[in-house]
């Protein structure tokens, strides 16, 4: 039990050295770390938001709305399909009723003429199979059934899942482009569960500003203006079908009344591939330059060529940001939005256009922010508690067990180094509860040594020689040490499942600490105690 081969000894010491190696980068400055040769580990423990300050947002993605929108799109396809253009070679089918119920997620179609039923059903089958968001991978997005004279279209469960996942994934991309356009910040934007997104921005303790940029829908559309509607009719809400009234954005100096636009957009934001802010070369203020992709460029060229002298409006999130008159055909596939933008407005709007539209509405479900001052205070408090708690336990062990107490203390120090090394290796995040976890681990890690030492005392009292007593002590204590640590480890695992952020930080350090403490307290102290006992072979053991 107390004997270790050369290789075992080397392995034990090697492991501790490895721990030191992985822990070292935490104590170096960034420049020193960058200067190190490639084989040296460089990853460090990240400080949690509660320690360095920052914002945490939990966003809910409205995936139901995404699915509803798709179903409504299918419904308008169905309506169009029943009234084909003349010359399409197919008859019109009169609709008795066509409704979408968002509670059941079903589109329900009744035809006026029972003779048309089979024809209508086949047409519905055709459109739900082709086009309209058909998914790859052989998944059928929509199911068509008939029920009592009704034709029912619903979305398959796989498709619902797929569309939701896509909405979450795309939202994450859009959010990332908005809050970290250069990709150089340490932001975390990750999915959580089926329809949640976690956003963590270290160092930014103004979540309101963050949300302002995240929550803009970013829907950009180009509409033809309809100047034939008189302002008084428009104000009274007397709009011809297919027209909408849209207010101007409240940029400085605008102050124009709302305009009547054609509801169906000529061009949509997904055809814009780039946007940037720049100085207006023709006048005061700033402008936004944008570029279309090839599809958008063609459409824009066609539209401007056919509508010279007309007014069109650029609408961002249901507000007009510019309404220029078309002077000439614009064929080069790019354009500019001039308005009285300030530099900040121009760059924010450009960023919004560039990042694209959010596929779904995001609702903030939870929001936490910590200022840098509290973070600093917490680090100091945590470090102080750690050092004092550590010192208290170390001293207590020495006055309780003397030489063996020192062995336990060496193991304890090795344990803290191993924890630091393991946390760095995993690149995990240290939170204030995480520090508490380490302090607690210090208190509990000596338990294994206490078990062993008390056992050795008993064996000595029973008249065994020191070496024998130590042998038996280590042997007999093992099952209790194992059980005790497994139970704590299980508790830590459950905690890890429980929550994000601070609690998880505590669970990680506790779990890591328990695992490393079994090694340091049971193996490392045995190496030290065994080395002493076998070399000196004392007749009496002061314990």
């Amino acid at each position: 039990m107390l004997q270790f081969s050369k290789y075992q000894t080397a392995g034990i010491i090697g492991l501790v050295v490895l721990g030191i190696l992985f822990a070292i980068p935490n104590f170096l400055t960034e420049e020193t770390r960058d200067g190190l040769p490639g084989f040296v580990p460089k990853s460090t423990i990240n400080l949690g938001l509660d320690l360095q300050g920052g914002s945490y947002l939990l966003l809910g993605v409205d995936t139901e709305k995404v699915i509803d929108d798709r179903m409504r799109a299918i419904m308008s396809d169905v309506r169009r399909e029943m009234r084909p253009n003349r010359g399409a070679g197919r008859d019109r089918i009169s609709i008795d009723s066509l409704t979408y119920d968002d509670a059941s997620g079903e589109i329900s179609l009744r035809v006026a003429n029972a003779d048309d039923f089979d024809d209508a059903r086949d047409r519905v089958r055709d459109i739900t199979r082709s086009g309209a968001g058909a998914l790859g991978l052989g998944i059928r997005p929509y199911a068509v059934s008939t029920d009592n004279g009704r034709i029912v279209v619903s979305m398959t469960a796989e498709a619902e899942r797929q569309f939701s996942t896509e909405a979450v994934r795309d939202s994450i991309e859009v959010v990332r482009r908005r809050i970290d356009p250069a990709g150089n910040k340490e932001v975390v934007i990750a999915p959580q569960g089926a329809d949640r997104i976690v956003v963590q921005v270290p160092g930014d303790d103004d979540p309101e500003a963050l949300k302002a940029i995240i929550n803009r829908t970013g829907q950009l559309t180009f509409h033809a203006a309809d100047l034939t509607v008189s302002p008084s009719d428009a104000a009274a809400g007397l709009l011809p079908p297919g027209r909408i009234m849209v207010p101007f954005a409240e940029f400085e100096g605008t102050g124009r009344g709302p305009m009547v636009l054609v509801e169906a957009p000529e061009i949509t934001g997904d055809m814009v591939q780039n946007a940037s802010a720049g100085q207006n070369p023709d006048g005061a203020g700033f402008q936004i330059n944008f570029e279309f992709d090839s599809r958008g460029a063609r459409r824009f060229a066609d539209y401007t060529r056919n509508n010279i002298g007309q007014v069109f409006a650029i609408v961002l999130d249901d507000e007009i940001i510019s309404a220029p008159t078309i002077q000439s055909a614009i064929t080069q596939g790019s354009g500019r939005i001039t308005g009285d933008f300030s530099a900040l407005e121009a760059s924010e709007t450009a960023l919004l256009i560039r990042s694209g539209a959010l596929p779904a509405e995001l609702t903030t479900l939870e929001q936490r922010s910590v200022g840098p001052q509290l973070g600093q205070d917490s680090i100091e408090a945590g470090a102080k508690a750690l050092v004092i708690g550590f010192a208290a336990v170390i001293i207590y062990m020495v006055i309780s067990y003397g030489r063996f107490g020192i062995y336990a203390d060496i193991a304890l120090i090795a344990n803290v180094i191993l924890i630091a090394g393991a946390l760095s290796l995993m690149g995990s995040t240290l939170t204030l509860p995480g520090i508490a976890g380490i302090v607690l681990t210090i208190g509990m890690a000596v338990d294994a040594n206490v078990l062993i030492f008390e056992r050795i005392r008993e064996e000595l009292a029973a008249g065994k020689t020191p070496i024998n007593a130590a042998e038996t002590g280590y042997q007999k204590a093992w099952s209790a040490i194992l059980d005790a640590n497994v139970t704590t480890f299980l508790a830590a695992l459950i905690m890890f499942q429980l929550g994000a952020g601070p609690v998880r930080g505590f669970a990680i350090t506790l779990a890591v600490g328990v695992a490393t403490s079994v090694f340091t307290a049971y193996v490392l102290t045995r190496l030290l105690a065994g080395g002493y006992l076998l070399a000196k072979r004392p007749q009496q053991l002061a314990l």
Partner: protein
Amino acid sequence: MYLKLVPSKTNIPFIKVRFIAMLFSAALIVGSFAALLTIGLNFGIDFRGGVTIEVTDSEPIELDAVRSTVGELGLGNVNVQAIRDFAGSEPAVVVYVEQQQVEAVEADEDEATANENAQQAAAVAVQNALRALLGDDMVVRKVDVVGPTVSGELIQKGATAVALAIAMMLIYIWLRFEWQFSLGAIVALVHDVIITLGMFAVTQLKFELAIIAAILTIVGYSMNDTVVVYDRVRENLRKYKSKPLAEVLDLSINDTLARTVMTSVTTLLALISLAIFGGEVLRGFTLAMIWGIVIGTYSSIFVASPFLLATGVKRDWSKQPAAATP
């Protein structure tokens, strides 16, 4: 010689006093239930939803002024507390605003979204009001906003986690020992959890998500303590085949008493350091842990072990091999 809080050889008749311990535990449990039912837990925003804002100012902050300023916003129940920090830092207050309930929902907004947004609007309103009251040198240290969806989930998650932890312990002990042991250990765990909850109801300390973490740790620790005693019981049952069970239990508890006390002391040393120096954020968490360590230690000795007497334990362990040693 070295410091020994407990003499090497003790002979305390723990089993004999088990009825007194039982009465004591029963009283604590009944008291805890009574406190939980009448006073209830003082849930923090993790579980109740709402807003907490912590601010500091260079000058002392008048709590009443803060209370009336925030109260005038019409955000419902408002709670203002000064933070007493041992570090002696600048004066700080925590403002708690209860979860907002939207009465009229605008046409284009659904109710759930409106309710989530109302919490954040409240947070902004409180900060603006505080800035108007305290001036621009006020520093916002911390803002937490938890909406109704998340708070509802956290209650469920927290309760599930504690139940799951206890169930896992039950299975583990069952596998390693016998069902009688497993039952005894679980009775002790449930005992600890109830009494810890009772303590929170009586003291009205904020019950937050971190407290669930503390309870889980207590479950782990109390289990740890119980297992050590049980391990010795199993060993002694093998050794003394004809000794009455009560005597074996007494012997085992006495054998492990020095260790039990020693480990509790080292853990408490670490925790007391955290409680004193670890700052306000960790205080509730640390106090829960300290209480839990004391209760957990008590329950391993006075609840878990005597319980074995009631269930009756298998006496013949000769066929069962000892736990493997590495």
